[in-house]
Structures are given as structure tokens and as C-alpha cells.
């Protein structure tokens, strides 16, 4: 199986380059991560992040044949050769497939991604009906892999001002949680031309999310709620 892999080590390379490599042995059911690990045995200097191997930790987002995804749940058999692997786009490259996700996490932290309660704390659970709990499905499962935000042109151009799809998805996760009591504060924080409104519904984010989540519809719902509150 033939690969073209983006390589760059600031210690030794003046410029990034695409390295052509071949993997002799593959097996049925092999995932891209397995292949990268086998390639790393051939050349231990190849660097990439990975951990859980089952699509839950969010470490191994990368650009695979032009599309962002997680290597550990991407079957090798579904990929066209030569398989072209690049780091997530638009982020500064630290080395090979490892990018600096600093801005991405800053934006996540900026939406106050935590439950805010104003009522005095009870000694038992805050009740929530199954229907209200269902509203969190499709939101809380985000693994912060960054595939969506690094596929978003608005985030490429404004990574410090536009929150990006992943952070906005989390914003809606708390706005829609019946237990959270900071709706107005959250909406006020999103105001202005950049944080939310730089989303032009280009839908790249929805297309790449490996967990099948839809930041686009979350963003739509925030906009709707803002409008409702404005009148």
C-alpha cells in the first residue's frame, strides 16, 4: 500500500515535504492508525498523536486524502492510493502530523463550557425529563478532535476571533441544557460580528465530524434563540 505523508521536523528540516512510503504488509480490518504505527516501526521518526484506538479520545485528527478524520476509525480498505496524509489544515505544524491546537482549545474555553447554576445546591439530583435530556444527544459526545474547526474556512482566517464549530457546538450544549442557568450571559458573550456570526454555513464541519455531530445545526439554533430574545 502506497502513502504520501507530510513530513516536517523543525530540528532537521528547513521545509516540509511529502514523503512517499510503502507498507508491505496489510491485514483485513486494518485501520489507518494501525498502518501509521507499522510505518513508524519502519521509520521511528514519524510523529503523530494517538491513544485510545477506538474513536473516543480525539487525539488523532488528521487530513486523510483531503478530508479531516480520525486515523483509528478510518478503514484502510476504503482509501484510494496513494493515501495522502497531512496534518489538520490551518494550524501551525509542530512536527509531521502534530499541530498546535492552542487556539482551538482557547476558543473552547472561551464559551464557558461548564454548567452554571444560580440556585442553591440541593442534596439530590436536579431533575431533568428524558425529553429534555435527549436534547443533549448529538452535543455532549464531542471528543474535541478538532476535525470540524480545522475544516472551517472562517476558522482558518479568524482563529482568534471566530469561535469555530466545535466551541459553538459546546455553547449550544449548555444553552439547551435545562439545568444551566446562564442563558442570557451566554448569549451576550456571543454577540458581535465575529464570535458566532462569522459562520457562513459552509457546512464543512458537519461533513467531517467523525462522531456524526452537527455543529451547523447547533449554530443555527443559537442564532434562532438570539433572534427570539431580540424581539
Amino acid at each position, binding site marked *: 500500500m502506497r502513502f504520501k505523508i507530510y513530513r516536517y*521536523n*523543525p*530540528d*532537521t528540516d528547513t521545509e516540509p515535504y511529502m514523503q512517499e512510503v510503502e507498507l508491505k504488509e496489510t491485514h483485513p*480490518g486494518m485501520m489507518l492508525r494501525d498502518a501509521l504505527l507499522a510505518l*513508524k*516501526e519502519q521509520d*521511528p*521518526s514519524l*510523529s*503523530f*498523536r*494517538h*491513544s*485510545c*484506538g*477506538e*474513536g*473516543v*479520545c*480525539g*487525539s488523532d485528527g488528521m487530513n486523510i486524502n483531503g478530508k479531516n478524520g480520525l486515523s483509528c*476509525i478510518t478503514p484502510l480498505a476504503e482509501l484510494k492510493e496513494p493515501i495522502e496524509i497531512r496534518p489538520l489544515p490551518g494550524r501551525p505544524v*509542530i*512536527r*509531521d502530523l*502534530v499541530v*498546535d*491546537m492552542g487556539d482551538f*482549545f482557547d476558543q473552547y*474555553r472561551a464559551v*464557558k*463550557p*461548564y*454548567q452554571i*447554576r444560580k440556585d442553591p*445546591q*440541593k*442534596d*439530590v*439530583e*436536579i*431533575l*431533568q*425529563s*428524558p425529553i*429534555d*435530556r435527549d436534547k*443533549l444527544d448529538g452535543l*455532549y*459526545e464531542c*471528543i*474535541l478532535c478538532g476535525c470540524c474547526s480545522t475544516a472551517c474556512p472562517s476558522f482558518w482566517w479568524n482563529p482568534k476571533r471566530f469561535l469555530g464549530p466545535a466551541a459553538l457546538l459546546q455553547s449550544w450544549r*449548555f444553552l439547551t*441544557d435545562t*439545568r*444551566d442557568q446562564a442563558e442570557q450571559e451566554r448569549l451576550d458573550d456571543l454577540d458581535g460580528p465575529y464570535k458566532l456570526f462569522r459562520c457562513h454555513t459552509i457546512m464543512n464541519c458537519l461533513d467531517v465530524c467523525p462522531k456524526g455531530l452537527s455543529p451547523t445545526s447547533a449554530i443555527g439554533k443559537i442564532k434562532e434563540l438570539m433572534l427570539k430574545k431580540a424581539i
Partner: protein
Amino acid sequence: MTKIAKRVFDTLILGAGGAGLRAALQLSQADAQVAVVSKVFPTRSHTVAAQGGVNAALANVSEDNWHWHMYDTIKGSDYLGDQDAIEYMCRAASKLVYELEHYGVPFSRLDNGKIYQRPFGGQSQNFGASQATRTCAAADRTGHAILHTLYQQNIRAKSHFFDEYFAIDLLRDDEGTFLGALVIDIATGEPLVIEAKTTFIATGGCGQLFRTTTNAHINTGDGMAMALRAGVPLQDMEFFQFHPTGIAGKGMLITEGARGEGGYLLNKDGERFMERYAPNVKDLASRDVVSRAIATEVREGRGCGPKGDHVMLQIAHLGADVVKKRLPGIRDLCQTFLHIDPIDTAIPVFPTAHYVMGGIPTDRHGQVVATFHDGPEEVVSGLYAAGECACVSVHGANRLGGNSLLDILVFGRAAGNQIIKHLKEHRYHKPLQEDAIDKAMQRLERWDKKGEGESVATLKAELKQVMENHCSVFRTAVVMQEGVDEIKKIRERLKDARLQDHSRVFNTSRIEALELENLVDISMATMLGALAREESRGAHSRIDFPTRDDKTWMKHSLYHLDGDRLDFKPVRTKPLTVETFPPKERVY
């Protein structure tokens, strides 16, 4: 030598899984300056992978109380658990789960709006009389929900994170007080000394010891090995849990919740064989019991598939709605890795390395305790541990499903509180001598040696195979003695291993080399502990010693790195307030 950068905090936390983050939150809320070091971004910690749920006797579904939970945990531990710590944990459970809910964990809900609970293995009402429904769940993504929520609350509390920093070794002064750690920034490869009045180890498990495992690449037992190198023994390492239902040959976990929701196991004859091994609770017997049953079915020729090397887990009869609502994550795993939909097709499963019951010995306040100079057990000054890397011991010889997430919450928090006390009593940092740092640096610099040598990847693969072949579900002296010899050889060969990549920036080869050194030490602790324990108890099943021997072996083992030495200490059988549960025959 170039001067190494230094940072100074009140307290240092190594690990940002559930245990580390729960402690960090406690400390940040008390206005302590906390440094949290993690080799991966916090939400990538392996707590994220926990599926089924966390135990607490909320009694939302059926009558329940902490005392029944306590009994189940002690029985599950095969009477090796310390009863004071177990009482403490079970009493605290409900409060801590409610607290999590207030923090925002998106628990699944019952129709009345309360937290959803499901049955799990080894849990009963009324001291073994009937099945309890005690495991609080957020679908089958409970660990993800808890880990993300704890990280979020730490953002709110302004804990200070060192993301993608790797801890090399603990730092200690001549009097034996722990004063921080040497770490490296993975992105730059630069070393950094973090000085602190207390150091808390929460580095998680070591499932990478085995070839087939439910554990992530990062679960290499680093904190346990750091403790060993600092002269602290490891307790009860022979007790390693094999989860009955890992995906056969691949290792991804299928939660016990699948059986909790009503799933069952089948052999090649389509027989529900658990009825023979645990007539009362069948598929919801304790994990050690179910794993042994599966391994026995396969050994006796009743396994499924062309090689007869697994059994099947059936959940199709639960119906599409239940599977989609309660087990969406495992459905996803089956579709991705097996190309089957468990709504229609049974899942091939086999016991898979999952959880280490042993670890760094602590008391129920998270303080590390050790016997240093053949004297009585003493508190190690400035050193704390909790979570999977620690051994309180609440799991004894076999952990109940849903009790580990509880363990990390309860003892993460308890350690946080104890550290707050320590900080009040110790206003100033003790001075840290340079030679302590030099020693830790040597461990790092050893890998700068250039030249030909064996590769880390080869040695790691061999080690994992040795552990799988020599220290698995069923054990015998002969096979384990061979295992010890194999590990000794690997330990020797490791000294001559070399890296090919000596660059500084994000050098994952170097990290893997340091991790392998840790795994080798822990494999020795595990194998020697297992060889020494001549009885069968909990997860440790000896073919040559098939019964439990309370007269000789109701004691904890302690492995010291220095001289590969083992000693023992008694089980604490006296609870805090209630009566002791004396050992009984364990039937399910």
C-alpha cells in the same frame, strides 16, 4: 550542564484523568495553586473510554443502601479489600454522584427525571439476596461524560494545566520528603522541574502490559514505576482484571452494561453457559467468574468461530430502541470494527486485559503508605496517590464494574482534602537539592546514547506477548517461572536498546522508550506477585492451587524494585462503623 527551568506550585498533580481532575478541582476551589501535568490533553485521558457507569446506592430504580453496596464490594474483592476504605467509599458514593450531576454530567434519565441506573455484575440487594440496580449511567459513555465535565469545572476553577508534559521521575530530599517531579515538555523536548509541597500521583493503569487490552496506548503505568524507583513498593500487583467481554482478538471493550441491560453469553452450541457457572445471577456474576467461565468454555472445545477461540454476546433480543438509546457507543464500535450491527448479530467476545487492582499503597485519605526500613507502615511525607495507579485497597482481588469511576471520584476528592490540610500545616517549600534532579535527568539522558541497538517497539511487543502467554486468566508456577526469566532477559536487553531519533521536538519515540522502562518494572511486579501467591483468589486463578487459602493468604503483597523483593501486610478487616464481613465461600 545547562540550567533546568523551574516552576513552583503549592501542589503538583501528575495525571488529568478522573482522579487527577477531581483532586485538582477540590484544591483549586480551596484556592491552592495547583499544577496539573498530563502527557495528553486532559480529555484524552483514558477515563474517557469508560462506558457502563458509576455505582452509587441512589435507589432511583429499586431499594438500595450503601451497606449492601459495601457487602457486594467486599465479596467481589474476594475478601482482600480493606473494609475501612470500602465503607468510606460506599458511604460517599451518592453524595459524589449528585455532585457530578450538579457539575453538569449529562446522566441518562428515568421517566421521573431522576438519574438512570442499570444493573451491573456482582451487585445485590440485601446482602446477596437479589440483583441490585445501582450503576448510574450516561448512556454507555459515562466516562466521557464525567471526564469532560470534570475538565470543564477545572476550567471554571482556573486550575493550571501543563498539557502534553511527560513526568520522568519524582524528586525527593535526603529525609525522604517528596518535593515535586522532573517533567519534559513533549512539544519542545525541554526538561522542567516542578517544585511543590505535595505531589499527587494519578497516572492511571498499565493495561499496555498485555497484547490484547481494553486500555489505550498511554496506559503504561508511569506513576507506579516512578513510585517503585523512589523506593515505594507496589501492592497486590498479581491481581489484574480480565474483562469478560472484549471484542475477540481486537480488545475494544463491550461494557458489562450490555449484560446489565439483558444481554447474555452463548457458546458454540447456542447454550447460555453462565447458567452452569452462576445459577443465580448467571451473566451478571462477578467479572473474574465470567472470565473464567468463558476461558473454560473455549478450553473445553465449546468456543465459537472457525478456531473456537471466543464466545458470543447476544443483545439483539433487547430490540433496536434499547440498543440505540442505552448502548449507542458499543453499537458504533461493532459497526466500525466488526462491520456488524448488534441489533441483528451477536458479538464475538473473549476475556481481555482491562484493569489493575494493585498499585501504589495508600490509606483512605490518599496518602501513600510504605514500610521503608522493615518497620511498621508509615505515611510517606508529601506523596499522595489515587485512581487506578493506587491501591487503597477497595477492589482487593477483583473489582466490581462501576466501582473504579467511583474510586477515582471518592479518593481523588479525599486526597484533595488531605492535601489542603497538609498545605495549611506546611507554609513553606522545603529546599530541593540539585543532585535529586541530576538523578532524574540521568534517566532521560540515557536515551541520548547513539549507535546500534535493539528497538523499543520490538521489545515492547515481546514484553506484551510474554505477559499474555505467561500471566493470563489461568496461571501455573511453571509457566510463570518461564515468564519471570523472559522478563529478566528483556530487562537486560533494554539496557542496550537505542533510539534512532534524537531530535527534541515532539519526539514520540523517546516517550515510548521511557514508557517501556516503566512497563518492564511493572511486569516484574505482576509476575513475581502472581508466582508467589499460591492460592486462587478473585482474578488470580492458579491451576496448581485452585482454592482460596484464607489461613495463609489473606494478606496484601508488596513488591519492592530493590532486589525484586516481596513482603506482605495484613488486610484491614475492621470497617469504620459497622461489623466486619468475615470471609465466606463466594457463590453467585
